[in-house]
């Protein structure tokens, strides 16, 4: 059982960067040869997404980080660790985390590393950062998480671009984070990009279009077995949340907000129903920001709870689940959290 508790670390603030460009789902009538746009919106909840083919994940994360560091009044030289969670790096090598250290002007005395996870990535990233900080060796760190411009554009209107930054700081005595994690690699091909890695490489065939789930796409674009992902999500996510709550002796009455990975509305509503949680405890950002991979949990906290939680102690349970297959649940409290205005570039 992968339960982990990491104390003495708190979230100081969260910021999110998105492309200015808004794509309305309704403007995309040829969404699939299988169903029409109204059915798609009813099922997924996605009315619009933020999408352009200009900004990379690091562009969005850096813009958000500049804003958050200013809002927090932090000195960049104090930031000693940076974890970058993405599946859309600037280059295949080197790690984007290294590029971002320099670009943000962080000290060279900086621990920087990458996590290649998607929907579960923010929760995993939190555990990486909190592990580094729990003993007090590192006092301030940044967790960047998101996905944006991939090697090839994603034709799926469910996928949206965002780069988030979560600022963490050491605070002796803080209850910190309580985690549950799981992995089922037998579902590795439920969501994947067939070509471009060491297994298949890139060839002329990689660019040939083929029909996948009613859409034409090539082998450098992400494809999904929707039914397998759906079945996995509605069964695994509620179990992980319940396990974490039970293991750490918490009840849903103790929880102010349950933030789910914004997979799609249908999945999240099934999970909410299984947990018997009222609507007001489970905010959604997916109508406006769609599914932003590892960014969905922090962007939901940032955009849906800004102005509501900053001044009071607030208890969260958050669950990320998806590509891998991989999942993680985290329980934590916030107090005096800084939620920066949305950064649009």
């Amino acid at each position: 059982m992968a339960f982990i508790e990491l104390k003495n670390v708190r979230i100081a603030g969260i910021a999110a960067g998105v492309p200015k460009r808004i794509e309305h789902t309704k403007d995309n009538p040829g969404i699939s040869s299988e169903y029409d746009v109204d059915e798609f919106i009813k099922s997924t909840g996605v009315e619009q997404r933020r999408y352009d083919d200009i900004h990379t994940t690091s562009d969005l994360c850096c813009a958000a980080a500049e804003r958050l560091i200013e809002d927090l009044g932090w000195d960049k030289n104090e930031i000693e660790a940076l974890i970058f969670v993405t599946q859309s790096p600037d280059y295949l090598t080197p790690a984007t985390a290294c590029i971002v250290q320099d670009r943000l002007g962080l000290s060279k005395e900086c621990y920087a590393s990458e996590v290649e996870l998607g929907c579960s990535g923010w929760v995993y990233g939190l555990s990486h950062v909190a592990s580094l900080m729990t003993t007090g060796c590192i006092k301030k760190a940044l967790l960047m998480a998101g996905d944006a411009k991939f090697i090839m554009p994603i034709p799926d209107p469910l996928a949206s671009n965002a780069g988030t930054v979560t600022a963490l700081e050491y605070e002796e005595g803080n209850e910190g984070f309580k985690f549950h994690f799981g992995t089922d690699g037998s579902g590795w091909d439920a969501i994947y990009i067939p070509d471009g890695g060491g297994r298949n490489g890139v060839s002329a065939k990689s660019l040939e279009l083929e029909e996948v789930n009613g859409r034409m796409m090539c082998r450098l674009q992400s494809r999904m077995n929707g039914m397998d992902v759906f079945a996995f999500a509605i069964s695994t996510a509620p179990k992980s949340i319940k396990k974490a709550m039970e293991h750490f002796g918490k009840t849903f009455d103790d929880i102010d907000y349950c933030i789910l990975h914004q997979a799609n509305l249908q999945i999240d509503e099934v999970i909410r129903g299984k947990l018997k949680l009222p609507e007001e405890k489970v905010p959604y950002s997916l109508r406006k920001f769609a599914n932003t991979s590892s960014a969905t949990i922090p962007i939901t906290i940032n955009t849906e709870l800004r102005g509501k939680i900053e001044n009071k102690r607030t208890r969260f349970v958050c669950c990320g689940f998806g590509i891998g297959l991989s999942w993680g649940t985290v329980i934590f409290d916030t107090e005096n959290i800084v939620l920066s205005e949305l950064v649009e570039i």
Partner: protein
Amino acid sequence: MDIKEFINNFAEQFDDLDAATLTPETEYMALDDWNSLVALSVIAMIDEEYDVTLKGNDIREAKTIEGLYNTVCQKM
């Protein structure tokens, strides 16, 4: 559980489909209104009503409503 109840639950996953038009032998993937979004609703219904988690292949391979019913029964 019985197959009549299963057929009623199955029909409810469509926007506008009379359960009386369905039989155990109905090949559901050939229905005009069948699509991948309906398939997700069927998976959710089976998860909720019968506490069984199906995979995409179960839906594709069962072909008929009775075939799917049998798959669910085996996994219960």
